[in-house]
């Protein structure tokens, strides 16, 4: 992959931790409880308005879906329900967006205009997302390289899809709708997978420096725009883990290069667009008594099996383009999306899946498939199969061109799958219910005086203020933990060194031991540090407590301590144990006298580790040892 020229840009969406939502006074808090009430809506656009512009929107619209919205009385009001006009823009959120813009040296607009961006997948009850452009330009510095920032926008977050299944409805929960987001879009200046991660990290740190940003999974979302030379601009949505970014970029480069290879191979085989003809052939009779469960089930419920010949595609559908994903997978993604089918079979994976060699041969003969050709096969209701085959066919044709432009979704392993066609140019029009907001030079001057400390300054200050070793401080910085580190020091009063070690070393070694540390929240960490600072547990107990928290994220500190057998010892209880140990080792004590301390200390610690501080144990043991010797 060395020497491949890529262009990559990032779009980072950071949820803000403001007291209220962007256009109403609801709190910015999510709820896991069952909803208090639900309502249902449909969205509509006149066809003339969707027109040829946006196939994705048109498709959503034509599905004719209704939306079911789950609400809680405490974080949803009539504004989210689109039953009341939006209120004025949240000035706390606007201030954060302005400060961020100043921090990157952007040119701030003199008047903010709130726009409506049409989104008709139901994730916005109104059918549009309110968004506003706050600044243009500016840049950040990453390892001495300047990365341009194109725009900073302030917008409302969408509702979140829930798992609730109801016939004919898509369910959304409205708690997240309206929470302010800062959207930062970089220029396509990124040239390597690792640089993408570093740019995201850098922007994340700057956002974090603002203070009032949400933390935890899902509160910062990265979209990537990637193209390799000769490929196409691919938008990858919803990357939630920073560490996944380099892998996604790498695998996307791999995918685009493989697709270009396939294109070249098709060229060599002299396959032309007119060679690919959409003439599905009914092969239901051939598969009538197939042993394939999928085929059997579909045919038994009245479905049909249609196959389509792809001239010149022999061996290419099975070619891997990302780990575990083939060109055939790309065709299947499209078939699923447009046809709503479960997937498709292609000749490179057959015979297989219960479809026999004999059946494959019969299909090949009927289709006139020759050595270099391939075919695809879909079994479902006729209408679905036709739509799905057509979609897969269109994707096959695009293989002749190389990489089709599309919006893809990130999988957890760093591969991506087709999500939807790239949206047409944004259909935006002014939000007439909100007056434009004038930003005066005086406003900006005032904000400039109150800008947060830049992350590098924070790093320097932390090293000095808390006497942190340089490598540890840098580790905190690169793990985006400098802010949490300082917060933990200030709120718990625990020794900075101990907190830093926990954040950098302890968690890493727990992860190595396969403890699910991704479950650990900042609340868990703060509770643990506080317990140590208060003398509730000893510092030695930190790994045990964090392990319990990671395994039981919903447990309280008390429950965790109980589970780990870590209820704190009183000095009296300790003294009991020490006396007992001395009693058990009477001989040693009478022989060696005070020299038995080391051995006894080891035994006592074994029994009380984590429940009381080692220094206290030593002191009590010394006292008791003295008594025992002198008696």
């Amino acid at each position, binding site marked *: 992959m060395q020497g491949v020229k890529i262009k990559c840009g990032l779009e980072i969406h950071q949820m803000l931790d403001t007291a209220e939502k962007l256009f109403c006074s609801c709190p910015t808090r999510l709820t896991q409880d069952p909803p208090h009430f639900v*309502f*249902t*809506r*449909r*969205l*509509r*656009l*006149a*066809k*003339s*308005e969707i027109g040829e512009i946006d196939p994705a929107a048109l498709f959503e619209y034509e599905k004719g879906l*209704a939306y079911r919205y789950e609400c809680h009385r405490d974080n949803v009001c*009539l504004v989210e*329900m*689109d*039953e*009341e*006009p939006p209120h004025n823009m949240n000035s706390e959120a606007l201030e954060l967006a302005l400060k961020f813009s100043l921090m990157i040296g952007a*040119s701030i*607009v*003199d*008047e*903010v*205009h709130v*726009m*409506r*961006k*049409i989104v*008709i997948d139901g994730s916005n*009850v*109104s*059918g*549009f997302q309110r*968004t*506003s*452009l706050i600044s*243009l*330009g500016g840049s950040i510095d990453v390892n001495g390289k300047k990365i341009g920032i194109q*725009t900073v*926008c302030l917008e409302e977050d969408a509702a979140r899809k829930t798992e609730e299944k109801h016939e004919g409805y898509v369910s959304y929960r409205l708690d997240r709708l309206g929470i302010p987001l800062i959207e930062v879009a970089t220029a396509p200046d990124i040239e390597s997978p690792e640089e993408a991660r570093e740019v995201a990290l850098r922007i994340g740190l700057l956002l974090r420096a603002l203070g009032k940003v949400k933390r935890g999974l899902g509160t910062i979302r990265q979209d990537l725009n990637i193209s390799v030379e000769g490929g196409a601009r691919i938008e990858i949505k919803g990357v939630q883990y920073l560490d996944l970014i380099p892998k996604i970029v790498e695998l996307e480069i791999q995918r685009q290069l493989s697709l270009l290879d396939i294109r070249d191979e098709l060229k060599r085989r002299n396959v032309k667009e007119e060679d690919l003809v959409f003439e599905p052939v009914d092969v239901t009779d051939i598969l009538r008594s197939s042993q394939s469960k999928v085929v059997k089930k579909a045919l038994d419920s009245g479905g049909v099996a249609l196959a389509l010949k792809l001239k010149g595609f022999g061996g290419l559908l099975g070619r891997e383009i990302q780990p575990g994903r083939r060109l055939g997978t790309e065709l299947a993604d499209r078939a699923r999306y447009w046809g709503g089918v479960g997937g498709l079979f292609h000749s490179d994976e057959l015979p297989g899946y219960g479809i026999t060699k004999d059946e494959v041969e019969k299909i090949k003969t009927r289709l006139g498939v020759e050595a270099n050709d391939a075919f695809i096969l879909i079994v479902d209701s006729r209408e679905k199969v036709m739509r799905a085959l057509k979609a897969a066919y269109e994707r096959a044709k695009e293989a002749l061109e190389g990489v089709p432009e599309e919006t893809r979704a990130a999988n957890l392993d760093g591969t991506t799958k087709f999500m939807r066609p790239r949206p047409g*140019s*944004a*259909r*935006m*029009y*002014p939000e*007439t219910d909100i*007056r*434009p907001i*004038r930003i005066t030079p005086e406003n900006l001057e005032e904000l400039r005086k109150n800008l947060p400390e830049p992350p590098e300054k924070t790093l320097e200050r932390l090293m000095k203020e808390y006497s942190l070793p340089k490598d540890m401080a840098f580790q905190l910085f690169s793990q985006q933990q400098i802010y949490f580190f300082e917060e933990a020091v200030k709120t718990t009063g625990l020794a900075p060194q101990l907190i830093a070690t926990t954040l950098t070393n302890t968690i890493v070694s727990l992860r190595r031991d396969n403890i699910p540390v991704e479950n650990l929240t900042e609340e868990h960490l703060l509770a643990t540090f506080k317990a140590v600072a208060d003398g509730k547990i000893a510092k030695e107990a930190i790994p045990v407590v964090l392990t319990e928290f990671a395994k039981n994220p919903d447990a309280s500190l008390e429950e965790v301590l109980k589970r780990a057998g870590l209820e704190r010892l009183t000095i009296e209880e300790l003294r009991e144990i020490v006396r007992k140990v001395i009693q058990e080792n009477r001989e040693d004590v009478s022989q060696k006298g005070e020299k038995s301390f080391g051995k006894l200390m080891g035994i006592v610690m074994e029994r009380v580790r984590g429940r009381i501080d080692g220094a206290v144990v030593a002191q009590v043991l010394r006292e008791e040892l003295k008594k025992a010797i002198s008696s």
Partner: protein
Amino acid sequence: MEALSGYGPKVKELLSSVGASTFDRVKLSLTNGQTLEGLVMPRPSFGDPDVIVVKLDNGYNIGISAERISSITLVEKFSGKAQPTSKEALYPSGETPRGERVHFLSTGGTIASRVDYVTGAVYPYFTAEELYSMIPELREIANITTKTVYSIFSENMTPRHWSQLAQEIEKVLRDEPDVRGIVVAHGTDTLHYTAAAMAFAIQKAPGPVVFVGAQRSSDRPSSDAALNAIGATIAAIKAPFAESVIAMHATTSDDLILVHRGVRARKMHTSRRDAFMSINAVPLAEINPYTRELKLKTDKYKGREKAVEAYPRFSDKVALVKFYPGMTPDIFSFFSERGYKALVIEGTGLGHINEGLIGAVRDIVQQGVFVAMTSQCLWGRVNLNVYRTGVELLKAGVVPAEDMTPETAYVKLSWIFGQTDDLDEAKRLFQTNIAFEFDKRTGFEYYPGAYRG
């Protein structure tokens, strides 16, 4: 330069120096060295007139202060290409509509408008083809004809407009017997006044007059306009009744349309879709806009008649005043001095006002002003026999309006004094039930509190 009307002299000068106007593409160089390119947008009437609004290619509008612009160049004049050039292109004609004829009248309001994504402007639409294009279901329900009567905000409607509208409706009903029903698109704010007015003006008809509005403007995908219009059209065709009614959302969900009598309905919420409620009555019918079924909720109604009977005149010398604790007697003398023929008081509780005002009310009654009493409780019936104040008001000549809403009592008196100046005849008409505007019975289920459990 009409197009630049929202801008101050600085921006106007800047733009005209390069011959640019709204929607033209310009390039701006800013004093900080940045350059921007986009379309010049019209200035909203609110805000700083020295800030020029530009639509960037990414769709966002931003405001740039004229002071920060060091130079401007005109890139391209607006071709108008982005705007709909022909109706056919925008509204592809489809199959011929099925179903009976429904005549749509528009008075304005948010129900009929669409947005142009290039300019961000909202355009009204109201031809049948436009309606079919925006709401394709209508083509399957009715054969629609349209006419725009006014294009005004509903708060600007007056009794004079009611008269004109009633005449228009009467004419259509008389001259075009194939019209199965009439749908009137109307702003929601005074929808119930106009709907009540038509109930008195059109007393017999071959079909209903169905008023419809939208609480969320139709330039948004979530608008209630389409579903309400579908409900209203179904009502116009399927209703066995021929009354003046209002068809609007029943709940916050897009599930059911309720048909309220105009004389019984009231807008009870500033913004919700289900803002309209029947007061002291149950709705006439409910409509499932998906199955297109209409279910009657009462068996008392005026049926469709062959003949048309209409009395389209209204008086503008009728007023509605709300009693409040600090009210002074001179308010009442104002109405008699200015020649008002009738006054509706919105009193407290069972129909009361401060006893210090009773003398002034007695005076204007004696001067020939018809005074009716309603309640600001809205729900329930006035009764002037229970307390001494009520008895005094009766003695002063005040006529209780039973369980009529204050608005309906006001519209009814405006209509009555459009027909007669005779006070005895007026009183007789006021106490006659003309369009189910009052009811001698008050059912338990007429009050929403009854459903709360």
